[in-house]
């Protein structure tokens, strides 16, 4: 009797992982780890950058003029209540109807920008608003223009909180990009979704580990960046 095809292979997880790692397609060609990693990184970074460019100016204005803190809170609450999977699906359907290709990353990119915006917006507003009013007042009192107050005092002091927002956005985006595989895109999630479908535990686990590592490295790396970007006077020993 022939070996049942497509049935879960008689392999332990380790053997399956080994088998996956020893396949040449894993390391070269259009479906390789490098390609998927590249896709994943590219789309995550672009999403965060674009979202930042879109919301930071407005957020800075809100923060500086000490307005809209309710808006900021509402934004983060709404952002949290929106299921990222759902946003991705809606984005996919809209963009496909508009003529974007199935395999192109625009649907994923749009969804990721939408998800990266709220935490960066809210943290930027909050970061600037929580600068001690006394500090801002004394800066004004020293004769600094509004612009100088903003760039010389408020922004530097708000940097830790702002960067926190960027970090949250980045990690969120990396996680949601994984779901991109559910809308026929690539990224590291491709190994997970295909692994699920093919009952290939090696591919499944390898994909999961890779994207987990990416997320953790991004988080840790960014924390480090946060610390070095924080003005020395604000760095408190934790």
């Amino acid at each position, binding site marked *: 009797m022939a070996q049942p095809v497509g049935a879960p292979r008689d392999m332990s997880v380790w053997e399956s992982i080994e088998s996956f790692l020893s396949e040449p397609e894993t390391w070269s060609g259009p*479906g390789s780890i490098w390609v998927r990693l590249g896709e994943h990184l590219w789309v995550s970074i672009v999403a965060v950058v674009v979202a930042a460019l879109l919301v930071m100016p407005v957020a800075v204005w809100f923060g500086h003029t000490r307005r809209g803190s309710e808006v900021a809170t509402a934004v983060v609450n709404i952002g949290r209540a929106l299921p990222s999977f759902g946003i991705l699906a809606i984005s996919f359907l809209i963009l496909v109807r508009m003529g974007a290709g*199935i*395999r192109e990353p625009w649907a994923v990119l749009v969804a990721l920008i939408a998800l990266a915006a709220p935490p960066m917006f809210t943290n930027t507003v909050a970061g600037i608003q929580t600068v001690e009013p006394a500090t801002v007042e004394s800066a004004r009192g020293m004769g600094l223009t509004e612009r100088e107050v903003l760039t010389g005092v408020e922004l530097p002091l708000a940097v830790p909180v702002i960067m926190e927002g960027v970090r949250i956005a980045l990690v969120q985006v990396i996680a949601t990009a994984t779901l991109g595989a559910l809308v*026929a895109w690539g990224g590291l999630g491709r190994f997970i979704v295909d692994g699920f*479908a*093919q009952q290939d535990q090696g591919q499944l686990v390898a994909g999961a580990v890779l994207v987990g590592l990416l997320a953790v490295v991004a988080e840790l790396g960014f924390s480090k960046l946060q610390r070095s970007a924080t003005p020395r006077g604000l760095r408190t020993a934790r």
Partner: protein
Amino acid sequence: MRRAFRSRAVGAILAVALVVTACGSGDGAVDGEPIKVGSFAFNESVIVAEIYAQGLETNGYEVERSLNLGNREVVKPALESGEIDVVPEYIGTLAGFLGAEQSADPAATWEAAKTAFEEVGVTLLQYSPAQDKNAYVVTAETAAEYGLSTVSDLQPVAGELVFGGPPECPERDLCLLGLQEVYGLEFAEFVSLDAAGPITIAALEGGEIDVALLFTTQGIIAANGWVSLEDDLGLNPAENLVPAIRSEVVDAYGDDLVTLLDSYSEALTTEDLTELNRRADLDQEDPALLAEEWLTDNGFIE
């Protein structure tokens, strides 16, 4: 006081959780318990499963639906474990999956699959004349450009073409694996899409893939003027529809259930499937409504 409230609340939640998780594990339908109808994750499977489900309900059976579960890697274990009781299957692919003999002869393939499946407590009822095989489809333009009418015609040009299909395709002997082994085809790239669903269709329409894995009963192929390449080396075995049902359920409910499901199988034709699929894929009609219409048209529902 607040502490007491909190711990009582936590206790209550835990109790609910325990009850819910205990209720979660299905034992399979026995006398009086609802029959769980499952399906694969593509329109045709949902439509046929709905035919079973609605037909059973009309005749007084209690039915639970677990439709759109996924591919066979998910559905087969669910059937074996009793999470679902009956699912519309395809004799050829099923036989291959079970390691049994598959051929172009429906009776022999059915027999082989039946014997193999019974070893795990699932039986096959009468198979339908309706067949749905894997189709390897190109657009009219692609067919004209490369002179394609059979799958063998792909041999010289496969390396320039992109193949799109469901994620499990590279592992399936009626998909990429078989195309490699039987036809010697090595495509430039495989793109993981869905099971002959709108994503695959849109990808073929948009020219993002050159060859798509679809199903022979998908009326959209003809509607779009696409070319379903002829399987000249006979890779695909007979793929008649058949209800795969847990033996336990058959024993519990007896002949009436079997007769009922057999009557649907008998009445289903390949043309029916093609028309139903076209309306589901192209006109985006609801599979449940399509099933109801079919049952009414064929006299199973008033």
